[in-house]
């Protein structure tokens, strides 16, 4: 690996497209007017017959003029860098083919990745090639240049210098980047009067400067109060790995932890709980108080429901007899501060060494910072600000409704916005400057656990863009210096000698982590809080009638920052499987009371503000709670982002960012179609996603292979197979996007999904089981099963889907004529068909992302999961060159590589030592629809349920 950046030039075969269809139709836009159609009909009809077989093409080869420095295989290079996750680092390895970054993987050496990724990380590569990214600076809406901006700024410099920055303000997003913070610090030092504000619509991960870290691998009993630590946390990947290590079966035994969750609306974490209590925020204080008292042996009030009573008793029972058990409590960032104090007490009483506190790394609470949007608006209204720089944040869209930020910004005489898109804020600023994608510039970031990572570019900026650090530095110096020098400046000590630093620098870049010795972070953990062991009595926000509105970041587009990423937009949201839009999630009882069905639009009204939203009925939603996701209703910021769903910011207030009681709702009297990739959420009494009691782990399995008339296949060399663990999969969707990125899977758009034509090769089925206020959720990832007796193979008339000598069920795109019989005959419905030409229009920058090892499918052919056969082939070639067998774990499909919970294991069934064989030997391993005798090579481990926690009602017999 190296820090040199390559332009996408040189000998690049480019994306692989089959071009077997006649020219008119191959690059056909998904929407075509009748007029165009009539124009082209004649010609195409004429061509239709002729173009079946083409003469071998003569393509062009473009070699380098001056070759880049050579590595054994110049085609593929890996770079260690990091993805900025709400200001924290997520270590990644970026794959670059012929100078084109094509795929992001987790960095095994990075403490917050451990080799895994989440959906957003997988999708971030697409944003690099986003055609809607702003390409050039704009002044007052007119295209301008950086020179122009630089000159204009230099014109203002003297005045600012003389006034020591008075009247000038900076608005940034909280970050952990040492370089950015160093630059901002330097700026404030130079001009003390400059006012620095920070804004993010998303939660803050520290409590007044102290951030808590948890050891989920050690904890035997976990209580989560509205926390989504497996999915929405800077350390979620590490937490997921640790947590799943305590949910996994090994050789018929599992050292299971006990997980209790109280939450108002489903989180992916809460869905994993052994006992989950759906409680409205107004109800929570009473519950926690009762829990606290019950630990001191007092009775539970009679007013409590059966569910609540059972939950508290069960939890108290597990907390009792505490010393030898490790216990911890985690509270969601969205919860009010007193809950965190309550948890503090809890953890001091039980937590012991499973919880430790470190000083906050992100700049939310930076002493030099003058506050957030409210303070900024106040300053502007007081006429204290005449120049404003908004760097990498979009306040006009993300501000709470009661902060008049738009008007305020318009008051300021001279405003600058640095952003990746011309978004809502850019529209109201004098200047808009394009911000570099993190894969095309130098920077640095810290992980939640503290270790720093250097961000290195894979390509030179595709647009004329700059990084935040560069801009801040320029503001101060008035002279341009590159991000490379800035970052090196941060990490270079004066007493370093050149060569030592160079070697270290290279080492850091290679490993993707700056070694701790060089870490400039102060290690003083705050011991300020007194060891208080008395639970504070929580006083609930009295519910003033109406419903409680819960505001959460969207699982895909977050606060809207990923809204222009088509992969994330088309990613089925957890629990609802909704795509391309958000909805107001309500509980069944409320729906019944108000006679609402999915898609009925309601009007939410709170202190004078209105919001119209279609409802979606969600099991396990707390009574009278309406959950809405941020990130939609964008008016600017890209074709993909614009006009999808509704903006939940309109009801948000500074006082009640995350939950707002006393919201009145009424029917709007209209309906709106919501598009979901899954329409049925019950198993209809079928044995699909299996659950098993902790006590049955070593129960003898039923005979795996019923008698078959077919002769079994011989496998001399390898026999590939996969095992998926339903206990550890928590439905984070990372595998789905990873697969999409690896296999050039197209995005089909909302309309096509509504027709049931989504293309994901691996999908996550979600089933709700059991009655009660909070049903159990099972997530079941379903890729191709690669059946031994594959129903698809026998019915294909042209042999386009065939069995290989290693047990794969091949799909040969270029042989497929598209009868779709294979899909009809597939019991798992994992096959996907190109009903229309779903490829991006020719010449779209999106093609730069395509994986050259995978054919881009043309219209009219079937496709499906291949077990990432291109990786298998690469692995086999590598092994064959060295005349050895492929080692276990050497080949990992994209889904396995991405999975933070290690729920997916792929390997060679002929190797008795392989991990996949170990897993398939488990008694609870089973084949989906095994009774059909398709003999799937993808099998599942049943979801383990600890018998002593879950109430019988939530476990299906």
């Amino acid at each position, binding site marked *: 690996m190296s820090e040199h950046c390559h332009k996408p*030039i040189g*000998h690049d*075969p480019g994306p*692989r*497209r*089959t*071009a077997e269809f006649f020219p008119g139709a191959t690059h056909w836009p998904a929407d075509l007017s009748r007029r165009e159609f009539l124009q082209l009909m004649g010609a195409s009809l004429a061509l239709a017959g002729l173009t079946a*077989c083409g*003469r*071998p*093409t*003569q*393509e*062009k*080869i*473009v*070699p*380098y*003029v*001056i*070759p880049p420095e*050579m590595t*054994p*295989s*110049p*085609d593929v290079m890996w770079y260690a860098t990091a993805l900025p996750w709400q200001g924290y680092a997520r270590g990644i390895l970026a794959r670059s083919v012929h100078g084109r970054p094509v795929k992001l993987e987790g960095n095994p050496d990075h403490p917050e990745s451990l080799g895994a990724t989440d959906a957003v990380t997988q999708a971030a590569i697409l944003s690099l090639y986003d055609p809607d990214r702003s390409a050039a600076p704009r002044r007052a809406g007119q295209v301008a240049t950086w020179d122009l901006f630089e000159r204009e700024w230099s014109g203002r410099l003297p005045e600012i210098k003389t006034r020591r920055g008075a009247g000038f303000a900076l608005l940034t997003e909280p970050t952990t980047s040492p370089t950015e913070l160093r630059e901002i610090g330097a700026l404030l030092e130079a001009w003390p009067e400059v006012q620095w504000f920070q804004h993010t619509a998303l939660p803050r991960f520290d409590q007044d400067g102290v951030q808590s870290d948890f050891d989920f691998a050690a904890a035997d009993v976990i209580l989560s109060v509205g926390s989504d630590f497996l999915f929405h946390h800077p350390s979620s990947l590490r937490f997921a790995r640790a947590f799943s290590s305590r949910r996994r079966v090994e050789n018929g035994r599992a050292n299971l932890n006990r997980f209790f969750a109280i939450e108002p609306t489903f989180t992916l974490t809460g869905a994993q709980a052994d006992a989950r209590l759906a409680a409205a925020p107004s109800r929570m204080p009473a519950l926690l108080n009762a829990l606290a008292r019950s630990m001191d042996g007092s009775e539970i009030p009679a007013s409590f429901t059966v569910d609540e009573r059972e939950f508290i008793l069960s939890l108290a029972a597990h907390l009792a007899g505490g010393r030898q058990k490790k216990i911890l409590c985690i509270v969601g960032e969205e919860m009010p501060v007193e809950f965190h104090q309550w948890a503090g007490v809890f953890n001091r009483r039980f937590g012991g060494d499973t919880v430790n506190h470190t000083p906050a790394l992100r700049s939310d609470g930076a002493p030099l910072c003058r506050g957030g949007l409210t303070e900024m608006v106040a300053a502007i209204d007081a006429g204290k600000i005449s120049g404003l720089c908004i760097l990498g944040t979009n306040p006009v869209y993300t501000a709470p409704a009661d902060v008049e930020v738009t008007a305020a910004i318009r008051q300021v005489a001279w405003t600058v916005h640095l952003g990746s898109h011309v978004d809502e804020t850019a529209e109201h600023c004098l200047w808009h400057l394009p911000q570099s994608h993190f894969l095309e510039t130098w920077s640095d970031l810290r992980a939640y656990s503290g270790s720093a990572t250097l961000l290195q570019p894979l390509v030179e900026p595709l647009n004329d863009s700059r990084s935040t650090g560069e801009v801040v530095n320029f503001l101060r110096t008035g002279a341009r210096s590159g991000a490379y020098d800035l970052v090196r400046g941060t990490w270079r000590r004066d007493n370093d000698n050149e060569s030592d630093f160079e070697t270290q620098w290279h080492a850091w870049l290679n490993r993707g982590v700056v070694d701790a010795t060089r870490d400039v972070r102060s290690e003083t953990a705050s011991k300020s809080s007194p060891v208080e062991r008395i639970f504070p009595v929580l006083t609930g926000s009295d519910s003033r009638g109406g419903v409680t509105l819960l505001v959460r970041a969207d699982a895909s587009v977050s606060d809207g920052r990923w809204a222009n990423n088509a992969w994330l937009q088309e990613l089925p949201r957890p629990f609802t499987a909704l795509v391309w839009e958000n909805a107001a999630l309500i509980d069944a009882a409320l729906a019944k009371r108000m006679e609402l069905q999915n898609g009925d639009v309601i009007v939410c009204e709170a202190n004078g503000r209105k919001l119209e939203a279609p409802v979606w009925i969600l099991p396990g939603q707390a009574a009278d709670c309406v959950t809405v996701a941020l990130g939609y209703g964008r008016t600017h910021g890209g074709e993909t982002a614009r006009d999808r769903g509704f903006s939940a910011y309109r009801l948000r207030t500074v006082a009640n960012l995350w939950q707002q009681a006393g919201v009145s709702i009424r029917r709007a009297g209209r309906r709106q179609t919501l598009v979901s990739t899954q329409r049925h959420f019950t198993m209809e009494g079928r044995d699909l996603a299996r659950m098993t009691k902790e006590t049955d782990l070593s129960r003898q399995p039923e005979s795996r292979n019923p008698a078959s008339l077919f002769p079994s296949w011989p496998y*001399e*060399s*390898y026999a590939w197979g996969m095992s998926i663990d339903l206990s550890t999969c928590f439905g984070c969707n990372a595998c789905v996007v990873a697969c999409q990125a690896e296999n050039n899977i197209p995005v089909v758009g909302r309309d096509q999904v509504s027709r049931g034509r989504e293309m994901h090769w691996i999908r996550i089925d979600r089933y709700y089981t059991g009655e009660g206020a909070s049903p159990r959720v099972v997530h079941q990832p379903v890729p191709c099963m690669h059946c031994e007796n594959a129903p698809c193979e026998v019915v294909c008339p042209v042999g386009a889907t*065939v069995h*290989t*000598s*290693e047990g*794969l069920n*091949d799909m*040969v*795109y*270029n*042989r497929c004529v598209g009868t779709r019989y294979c899909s009809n005959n597939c019991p798992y419905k994992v096959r996907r068909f190109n009903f229309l030409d779903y490829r991006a229009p020719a010449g779209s920058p999106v093609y730069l992302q395509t994986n050259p*090892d*995978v*054919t881009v499918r043309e219209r009219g052919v079937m496709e499906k999961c*291949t077990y990432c*056969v*291109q990786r*298998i*082939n690469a692995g*086999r*070639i590598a*092994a*064959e*060159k060295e*005349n*050895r*067998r492929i080692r276990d774990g050497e080949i990992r499909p994209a889904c396995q590589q991405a999975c933070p919970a290690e729920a997916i294991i792929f390997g060679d069934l002929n190797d008795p030592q392989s991990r996949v064989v170990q897993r398939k030997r488990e008694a609870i391993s089973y084949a989906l629809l095994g009774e059909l005798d398709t003999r799937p090579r993808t099998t599942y481990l049943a979801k383990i349920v600890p018998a002593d926690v879950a109430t019988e009602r939530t476990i299906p017999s």
Partner: protein
Amino acid sequence: MQPAPPNDPSHRPLFTARATHAVRIALLGLGIAGSAAAYTTYEYFHSPYWNRIGIAPDQPVLFSHRHHAGELRIDCRFCHTTVETSANAGMPSTQTCLTCHSQLFRDEPMLRPVMISAEENKPLVWTQVATLPDHVHFNHSIHIAKGIACASCHGDVTTMALTAKAHELTMRECLDCHRNPEPHQVPASKVFSSRPVSLSRDAGPTATSEATTLPVVHPAPLTSCSTCHH
């Protein structure tokens, strides 16, 4: 049933004898023409012309493999540097040409394009001779590693003044070898040798006699579709 009685004045043969013959011949000819057309089509799509065998495409530079690889005996890998390590054999950069031609024949008009490319930093644009469809994933390095000689697919370039396709490179040709690779494997020393090793099986025994050839550890998947199509 019976046509009109003979005394009918309008009775006159509807078709003359010649006309009847004409129709019969026409019918016959139709059959012959049909089958002829079918056969011609078949031959055409299997013809060297269709597959561009022996037809050298226009190139920016009149580069002669016969001269460089044949007479000067320059090793294939001198220009096709990554053939052993990567899927692509690799095309020589302009710099590679200049290693010699910065001194030799630098003012030859024939070499102008190379010089221009170097001066203007504009790559030379060659036309690919041996092309596979995009849905075929071919990897040079493994074929070299397993002792498949360059000449097996590219023919004896040392005899080509202008480089042209030597084999059809159809799927059937690939399969012939993948079904039974041994006869086509040559000792590592001969992989880059200019001596042609034809795809026909007869070249086999002599070729594999030397032990230096790497065996294919797991030949089974060679004929799986996904070995080349994925």
